[in-house]
């Protein structure tokens, strides 16, 4: 059944959204193994680049410092994948049907799910950031890192919205996972994983419009020297536009069974 998610009136909607988000955060705490496993990919990549990418001589590119913001961004991207997988699994397991028998509209619950995942993703990004900073000694500006955590919210929401949209297109969990990986890896490498100057010209033209590049544009200077880029509003607006666009598409295509 196709169900258009209605936009809830703010006052009546807020309570079940927060209660549902709280329950899902408790669920994440009940399942810390999944929380930790989700962190393995960014932490492994960070360690890998730290091992192989440190400059050997003065003047060499500090690869790990370059890619560190992109890996923090990757962490929040993986949060979008988790949200997508959860939706597809719930659909397959009948959990959405179980929720749909209650008087709380499913739209409220999907927003609650997104909110819970946003908080979990932010916590995971903070862990990756602290690990790189404190354990690996990657140079990070302290106040800038705090601001970066706030700015990361734009990216968290955009990638969760992307996850919700992909979950609406995918019929099975393995399809959702493959679809998200298909978007994740190119966006990671084109949006901050590779130095832009090594990309072919047409990819250099495209890459600034990717959400990963927008997030990287915001947090790279914050982590390096504590300052926002010269025109921070454009990437912020871009990420907000991705959030709204993907959310609207997800609401349009959402299926609970």
């Amino acid at each position, binding site marked *: 059944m196709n169900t258009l998610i209605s936009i809830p009136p703010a006052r009546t909607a807020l309570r*079940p959204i927060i*209660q549902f988000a709280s*329950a899902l955060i408790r*669920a994440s705490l*009940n399942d810390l193994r999944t929380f930790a496993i989700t962190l393995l990919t960014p932490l492994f990549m960070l360690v890998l680049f730290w091992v192989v990418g440190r400059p050997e001589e003065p003047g060499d590119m500090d690869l790990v410092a370059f890619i560190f913001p992109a890996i923090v961004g990757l962490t929040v991207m993986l949060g979008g994948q988790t949200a997508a997988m959860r939706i597809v699994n719930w659909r397959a*397991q*009948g*959990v959405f049907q*179980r929720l749909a028998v*209650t008087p709380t509209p499913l739209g409220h619950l999907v927003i609650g799910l997104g909110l819970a995942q946003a908080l979990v993703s932010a916590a995971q990004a903070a862990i990756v950031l602290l690990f790189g900073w404190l354990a690996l000694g990657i140079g990070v500006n302290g106040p800038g890192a705090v601001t970066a955590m706030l700015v990361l919210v734009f990216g968290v929401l955009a990638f969760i919205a992307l996850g919700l949209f992909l979950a609406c297109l995918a019929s099975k969990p393995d399809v959702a996972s493959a679809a998200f990986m298909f978007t994740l890896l190119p966006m990671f490498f084109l949006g901050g994983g590779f130095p832009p100057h090594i990309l072919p010209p047409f990819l250099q033209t495209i890459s600034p419009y990717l959400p990963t590049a927008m997030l990287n544009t915001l947090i790279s200077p914050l982590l390096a020297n504590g300052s926002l880029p010269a025109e921070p509003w454009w990437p912020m607006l871009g990420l907000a536009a991705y959030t709204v666009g993907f959310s609207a598409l997800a609401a349009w295509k959402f299926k609970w069974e």
Partner: protein
Amino acid sequence: MNASIAIHVEHLHKAYGDVRAVDDLSFSVYRGEIFGLLGPNGAGKTTTLGLLQGLRRADAGRVTVLGQDLAAHAQAVKRRIGVQLQRTSLLPDLTALQQIELFAHLYGRQINRASALALLERVSLAEKANALPARLSGGQQQRLALALALVNDPEIVFLDEPTAGLDPQARRNLWDLVRGLGAEARTVILTTHYLEEAEALCHRVGILDGGRLIALDTPAALLGRIAAPSAAPHGRALNLEEVFLQLTGRALREA
């Protein structure tokens, strides 16, 4: 409408493509009644329940639940009914107690820990309050799903094949719970494959076939229509298939 009627269904239709899942269904369920919907796989039982619960939209027809038109007041009706689905469909990472608390909130109810534990105690799961669904047996999961269906103190409880896949002991345990609901004057609508179960629990049963209601009566009256020797060979309990075949028969199908 008669105040003693909990659910009134008029000329209900629902099709999926060319398949008529529910075809001109009309019946009433009375308040305090335990009503069984029987039929083989694909008879339209679950679709009918979905239509009565406001989960699916009918192509045509009208459903009135507790005096309210379901199409116009689905959310209000959902506050007054409890639903146990065919699949238990529990949230995988929440404990039994957390599921009770969450679903109470989703019904707009505040529930304290003692009340949540009391509900788990009612379905004999108090000692499993902190267990995740994966740690529960099939019967325990069904009982937890029943507890979730009762979390809003519903006037009508829908049970979709609540004993499917359970061992005899777990099945009898669930029967006791259903009888308890009836004793509280709640209206219960359940679907089942087993006439034995319907006979033990239901005041009346409706038999569905191809989305149509082909019989509606008390279990005793339905069994009375069947020639006993052929219906219960070797002394074993009747099953739906035997009763169903005799009740429907070719003459009726061809009519």
